[in-house]
């Protein structure tokens, strides 16, 4: 599988910007950014991502809820997912994995390393 299109669900505009630069300019991916779970549900299928990167803490629908909802769409059911969060206690990591995520990227992330981290998790999950 070629990893090219990443759907980033993140409510914080500044982090959206940093992550977009990190993934697009450093990693060379194609990134679609959604600012909320609802927006992701509306736009995800059209974008047809190779990977979902979700923030955990979001107003309204949080990351895990958004992932569950997206998984209900047949076209998105198999797309790998990664959470970005400050909460990286082992138990929490286990919990995110149980939701079908490949892994967790700890916030604050290093933008220069972000693309590599993403690739590594996807390769490990493959």
């Amino acid at each position: 599988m070629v990893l090219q299109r990443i759907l980033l669900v993140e409510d914080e505009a500044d982090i959206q910007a940093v992550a977009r630069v990190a993934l697009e300019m450093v990693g060379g991916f194609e990134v679609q950014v959604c600012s909320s779970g609802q927006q992701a549900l509306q736009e995800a299928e059209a974008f047809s991502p190779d990977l979902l990167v979700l923030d955990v803490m979001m107003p309204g629908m949080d990351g895990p809820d958004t992932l569950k909802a997206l998984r209900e769409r047949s076209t998105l059911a198999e797309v790998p997912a990664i959470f970005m969060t400050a909460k990286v206690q082992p138990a929490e990591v286990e919990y995110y994995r149980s939701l079908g995520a490949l892994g967790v990227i700890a916030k604050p992330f290093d933008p220069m390393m972000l693309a590599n981290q993403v690739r590594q998790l996807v390769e490990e999950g493959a």
Partner: protein
Amino acid sequence: MRLGLLYDGLYPSLAAHLLLAGLLLLVSWSTLNATLALIWLLLLLLVLVGRLFSGYWYRCVSSSVDFDVERSLRIFRVGAFLSGLTWGIGIWLLFPADELAIQVFFAFVVAGMCAGGMTSLAPDRISALLLITPALLPLISHFLLQADPMSLSMSGMILLFLLFLVATGGRLQKVLQHNDQLMRSISDSEAQFRALVDNIPGITYRCLADEHWTMIFMSDQVDPLSGYPASDFINNAVRSYASVIHPDDRAMTDRVVQAALKAGNDWQVEYRIVHHDGSFRWAMERGAAVRSLENEVICLDGFILDITEQKQGIKQIKNQLRAFATLHEIVSGSVKDLRQQLQQALRLGSDYLELDLGIVSCIKSTSYEVFACVAPKEMPIHPGQVFQMGQTYCDLTLRQGDLVAVDHVGQSAFSGHPCYKETSLEVYLGMPVEVAGQVFGTLSFTGRMPRDKAFSDGEKMFVRLLARWVGAVIAGDRADQALQLNTIRLRGLFELSPLGIALNDFETGRFLEVNETLVQAVGYSRAELLSLSHLGLTPGHYWKQESVQVKKLLDTDRFGPYEKEFVRKDGSSFPVLLNGMLVVDPDGRKLVWSIIEDMTDRKRIERMKDQFVSTVSHELRTPLTSIAGALGLLAGGVMEHFPEKTTQLIDIAHSNSKRLISLINDLLDMDKLLEGQMKFSIKTHPLFPLLKQSIHDNQLYADQYAVQLKLQTVADADLLVRVDEQRLQQIMANLLSNAAKFSPAGSEVTIDLQLLDASVKVRVIDQGPGIPEDFRSRIFEKFSQLDGSSDRLKGGTGLGLAITRELVEQMGGSIGFDTVTQGGTCFWFELQRVSRFIPGNRIKE
């Protein structure tokens, strides 16, 4: 005694012998041969003079100790025989032939002599026979030889006379012997009586019933009682017994005796005797009348005892009893005020001692302050008055350190005392007063008039005891005051305490004491609360925990800290933290003191803090993520290339934003660790792979300082430890980054392992400058960083090692550091090793 009688009769009988001989010669001179008559007279005189001497000799020896009775008797008997023989010779030589009248005269004289001799020699029959037999036999034989009927009858008659005398002499001797025995037994019983009388502890007497008590007999013991010998009183020889009876007691004594005589009873009476030396002595007399058959009083018999000592003893006992009664009255007084109490005691004391002035003083160095006093109106002494110590008699008492009693100061060694000159007080009785082992002052009684006798032991004892009581009362009063003050203070603390305080009965749980804070917190009134048990405030689901605390209380006398809830009157509940202890009151009742902290505020603050920390963690971290991310991208040269100066500034901003992130992370970690909220997922891990991982993870960081990390140990899959993997990596990251930071460029940081008995020691050794001496003790403390700009440049929050220590300790390990001698530092932590177990069998590690 009979011998005495014999010798007593010697001189008269010698005179009788001489008289008879003279008479005989005179009457018959005409018929006699003158020469023979004179020779016989000379012979008789010789015998009589001999016997005279024997009588004189007897006088001399009879009173000596070794007087020989038998010898004296023998001498007397020889004398009697010689007398009789002389008479016999005389009759034989001078008997006139044919002169019947003269013959008869001879017989008459000799018979008379014999009869007289018989009487005077009655005490000794043998002496009598020795006298009369030689005297009469020549006469009988003369008459017999004449052989005429007249002569024959004369001789027969004389013989008969002789026999009669002999028989009579025997009877007389018997009478005398009997008399002798009688006399001896009388003398014996008199001696016995004497001994008896002498041994009776008192005076026996017999006197006439007259106004002089004229003594017929009185035993010698009257001497010690009166100072006069008994002989003075017998027959009123020198003085009458009545004269030594105390004038005040005479009338009474007479009255008692007369009444007893009238009633026919015995009497018993006590009176004083005026002794020869002028003192009084007490006598007790028992007596009874001796009456004739006609019931007339002949004399009085009785018995007098010296009871002076008993009387004095009784007086002393009475005196002491009075002292005790007074002390009891003082001690049991109902007055509570100290000064009044002391004043009352002084009044009773001065009444008892019959002295004018009573003072309890308080003495400080040389000043004498009247603490309490009683004084007559004309003596202006009042409490609070201050004297110079040296001007009071009490300085004697303090110097003595004991009781000082002076009954007449003017005649004592203290007559020169300033107090005497000033006040002329004559009597002083003082005793130091001690309070709690320290001299407080004195108790003293003084009087103006000298006493007629010295203070008795009872009076001294009284003052000693009273002084002790005064000390105790003052000490008690001080203790009361201190206690009262203490109680007020404690009560204030108790009521004003921001913590609830309660005293409960251990058995029933009932509240016995509660403070205002608790009353306010639970919403009950104080009275309502005091009717409840602590279980009445406890929600049911705490009852199990409750029993755990009760057990703890019984085992250790303490309970808590115990977090529970109390139910208010309105049914709402609030969190409380309890701590308490078990006490036992003097009745043996178990009580529980509890400190009850209302945790409502603390819980709220905790929640606020949690929220705050959470806010910090998210609200600060989110923008920081953006800042650090953006700066990272710029510094990473993703966008475009900036001039060198710009790049430098971006790098500064980037590295500082990262530092800020790690600071926040450390703060959050520390907070969690200290609150015990850090969750550890402890699992058994092989140690070696974890260390290898840490080197891998941290080498990138170390590269910045051109430092090489090196694991200097061989792989050992059996070396297991129980740790939280992530936390162990955090520990390693902290230690390795620290080591790298302080290492010179190009050096190595070595990690090695030391296997100990039950643990393993992980060591991180650098080649840095080492830790300065003065910093070593603080190195694991929070926010401890080496001062100085050069170290600041190394970056770090100052929490790294503190967090590391917390992590190690919370995983059951220990941490420390050693300074390596050739420079550099070795940080180490020690973890328990775990054995790989198959049930019942241990595989080698």
